[in-house]
């Protein structure tokens, strides 16, 4: 029997092509998973601020700077004036602090690069989470060890729901923890 060209295409070329396509999609999907949901994102910031130094070694409470976490939807990145509470005196001559002082005294906006973000149609609320006893590191990782802030957990909807539905396993440190709401209006409106 003569092998037709069609036969060859159907039996060899097509499966190989399909395999290559599917394999490359699969590999790309898993390989770029982190990039896709932002895990490991650690951009260079305009000022080389170290959480390891401030929160880790000096043990400054998170809420000294992020004053909104208990009261508001937004945790709030501190105003430059908050930094200047100490840095009008502390380490005045370090090059990074000089940058900071320049922002402050010339009244220029300080453009921190955003690391953690949920989409615009998600109305995440810091205060309800913090007031329920959830620790910052449960979502943001151990910031005390980070010289440059890095995203360690994915913030996709399935990750949110995972904790909302299995609070006991995910947040064992809270006594009598209850599951979070998993209705749509809890986050979307």
């Amino acid at each position, binding site marked *: 029997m003569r092998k037709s060209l069609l036969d060859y295409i159907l039996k060899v070329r097509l499966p190989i092509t399909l395999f290559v396509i599917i394999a490359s999609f699969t590999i790309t999907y898993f390989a770029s998973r982190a*990039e896709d949901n*932002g895990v*490991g*994102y650690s*951009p260079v910031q305009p000022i080389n601020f170290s959480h390891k130094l401030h929160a880790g070694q000096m043990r400054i409470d998170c809420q000294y700077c992020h*004053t*909104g976490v*208990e*009261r*508001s*939807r*937004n945790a*709030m*990145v*501190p*105003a*430059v*004036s*908050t930094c200047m509470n100490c840095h009008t005196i502390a380490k005045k001559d370090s090059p990074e602090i000089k940058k900071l002082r320049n*922002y*402050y005294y010339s*009244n*220029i*906006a*300080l*453009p*921190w*690069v*955003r*690391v*953690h*973000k949920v*989409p*615009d*149609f998600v*109305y995440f*609320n810091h*205060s*309800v989470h913090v*007031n*329920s006893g959830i620790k910052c590191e449960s979502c943001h990782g151990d910031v005390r060890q980070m010289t440059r802030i890095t995203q360690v957990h994915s913030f996709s909807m399935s990750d949110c729901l995972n904790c909302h539905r299995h609070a006991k396993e995910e947040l064992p440190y809270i006594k009598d923890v209850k599951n979070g*709401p998993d*209705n*749509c*209006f*809890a986050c*979307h*409106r």
Partner: protein
Amino acid sequence: MSEVKNIHQPKADNQTEDKSKTEKLDTNYWRSFKDLFRDTSLIEASNHEFGDGVKDDFEPSKLSGISRRKFLALVGASAALAGAGCSDYRSKGDIIPYNKMPEEITVGKANYYASTSTACSHGCGVLIKTREGRPIKVDGNPDHPVSKGKTCAKCQASILSLYDPERLKFPMRKSRNGGFLKSTWQHVDDEIINALNKIGNKQIAFVSQRIISPTGKKVLDDFVKQYPNTKIYSYELFDEQIRNSAWQKCYGINKFPLISWDKAKVILGLETDFLGTDGNKVETSRLYTQGREVNNLKKFNRLYVAESTLSVTGMNSDYRFRLRPDAQFEFVMCLLNEINKNGISVPGSLPLGGYSLKSFAGKYSLSLKNLKQLVKDLASAKGESVIYAGRTLPENVHIAVNLLNEALGNTALYRTDSIDVDVLPLLKHEEIKELVNDMNAGNVGMIIHYDSNPVFHFPDDLGYKDALKKVPVVVSITGSQNDSSELGNYTLPLSHDFESWGDAKTRTGFYSFQQPVIDPIFSTRQKEAILLTWLKGKPVVFDEMVYHKYLMNNWQNNLYPTFNTKMTFTEFWNAGLHDGIAILEEEPDSFGSFNSSALSELQNAVKASSKYIVVLRESYQAGDGKFLNNGWLLELPHPVSKITWDNYAAVSHNTAKDLGIKSNDMIAIRVGDRKLEIPAFIQPGTADKTITIELGFGRKVVGIVGTGVGFNANVLRSKSAGISPWIYLANNVSKSGSSYHLVATMEHHMFGEALTKDAAQKRKIIQEGTVKEYQKDAHFLNTENPVKMESLYNPHEYPGVKWGMAVDLNKCVGCGDCVVACNAENNIPIVGKDQVAVSREMQWLRVDRYYSGSIDDPVTSNQIMLCQQCDNAPCENVCPVAATTHSPDGLNQMIYNRCVGTRYCSNNCPYKVRRFNFFNYRDHFKDNYQQSHLLSLVYNPEVTVRSRGVMEKCTFCIQRIMEARSNAIEEHRPLKGSDVRTACQDACNTEAIKFGDMNDKDSEFYKKYRTHELGYYVLEDVNTRPNVTYIAKLRNIESEEV
């Protein structure tokens, strides 16, 4: 006993009773003539989901190609996309913190500032909600003694004017060729100061609207001191002068007292819309509905209204008489005669014998039975009734009404604790003629339009417009270019109320304060600051704080000492700004005893004419024309006719027949030598040969939103008043031949009732009864035992809070304030007249108005209709992508980012409360108007701005629920029903809307409203189990059936 009997009625009995009731109630409910006469086109239309013309928009040949802007935007977007795709992590943007943290701001939390609204001259107290320093919503200030935490639609919508992209942004001066050129403050100030100094003995005339600020008046006084030739002319389009001068003739003081509406048992309104536009409706409607409390039937009032065409007040009346306004005098005299015959002595010796109620009733075909009932009620409720004449009626009617009230002892209901105050009395109508004469004689050197628009407001034949040409310098201080400023030399941009300092005195007993909540967005100044700069007499550097300092000085030196308080001035001032008001012990002027000499004006019998009569009323939407560029207000359906984006001539069915016209036909009205063409609209309940038109529309110089909106009926007014400055006899009214397209929402979103005649009644959409019926049997509606029907689905569980609403239809007056509040809270777009025409208005909340009874004398029922948040929601079952689902707190959640726009849910919604974004309306309406950066600032950051292709609907203000939940968690306490107030509830002047937790069986909401024996669900028979309860309206009429 009756309760038990009713519940356990055997089924057969129930049916027969139902049948007999249906026979008794031969009234059917209808929304429009098409509905009443079962017009086949309407039945056809209600079978289709969308109206005519919907497909027209999608004609590909009509679509414009890609514009340059769109093309650039697409190129930019694709470049950005490509760039983002190439990097390993997607950029998430920047976080830019404050440089120096403002102490009072927590990002994500709203701050509220007390202030005073000057949207109209009532000066209601407001709390302005600001987020991160920008005002986003106006709510009422609960501490304000008059408005008590409530606001009207205009006040709510005034925030849109703050962000109007067409606001004046810089001073302008007229160039030689007549156009306006951009200028600087320094420049115009110098020129005007120069002109002021050279004024010589010529007059400087300020033309202003009502001034309510004592310190603002002091600035004017200072001006007069420095330039003694200055005269201040203040006017309003509609004012209380006739009422006040009649009062002065009768009681000696030139101020009509306030009325205890809440204590009145019988109210007779004559050509007055006290629940709508006549007076301070925020206060009046609150007090009036305190006498409409179903749980306190002893206090239940009865409202009679005699008016030319249906108004909000007329819609709420128990008995209504159609009466042309020039017959009102005879009507009051007949009533005086009747009560005199009933043995109540009428002061003075008037020849009343000639006035016979019987022949009066015959002449105007009024129900004599009802008129006799009125006389009986007035006679029996001596000292507890109010007869109130509209401000547009002539003086003799007011004097006769004062006499009638005096005879009935109703003076007991005139309040003596407080009285309205004029900081600067309005000008008499005649004095404005003097100004025009002076202008024509060349005696006026400068005119300053002090935030006013006299060219539009004054009668044309006054000649003000032409006289302006003879004035060398015309300065207009205004928020946006208007008909008057365009004719001047200088147009100076005025700051918005929310950018200004001020104080207000509208009543005895308190002062209120106005504070800026945002810095002037543009290079604008407030009017007092402009004057203070000129008063320096020489060019100076402008001081931003100049009026703030002046205001504080005036308070410290002149007003604060009158308070006799132990607080220091700083404490006093800060407390005043914080509360928005300062309470003062003050004795109001008391009025004397009735002066019979006033009655001489009643000696001459005034006979009503049989000619066509034109009645001019204030607009519910556009105010006096000030709000003609405000899309929220223009798109708010007229409370009675439901017409949007236009005014019209309301005529009766019979008049239309006489003239040979239908609705939408243009008619030509001739009054004297003045002429107007305006579309006619057949308004049920209008007196024959009466034409009612609302003023405030048809401005020639207005922004893009108000251009071409309505017709200017001001042209019919004359300097020599007709029957009154607002009522004229027409020489001739005729059909003009052409026609117009009025757009009304009355037939939009009808319940699917094509198959059943009178569906509103049969399907129990509107249920009502009478006070007598209710007294006899509290359970006459038999609503406690809803028909139990099985559902195919498992019932939802509601473990925690379950949200519900109750609407007390006895208190809902149908004004529509809630609709505007909802627009503001929920980022609802303006769609424009062309889109309203095809039923695409986006308002989540609508006020359905039903008529019943005859076309000539309809009874009106109002019902607000919003998402009913059904337990068995038909919308949820049909969504193919689960974008609308049920929440454990009883809400139908609508998730925009999941919606793909199949519109199945809207099709399946029996209440027709879902709204679909056929366009990106922010882009579609008036060439990107709502997408301007400035207008975007008005959006509530807690609510998603919806785009094209997305379904939306009422969410019970989920953002407010979530905020309350977040606060409860912060305070470690359970969430309560009373923690949440919806935007419509906050705005409702009469507290008709209640909101709360249905699972909290001890709450007032549950016990008093949710389980009320008059409570019913709309369309209960489809087993949707709504979470909105309507409390049936009781009509206080003598017969038992409606």
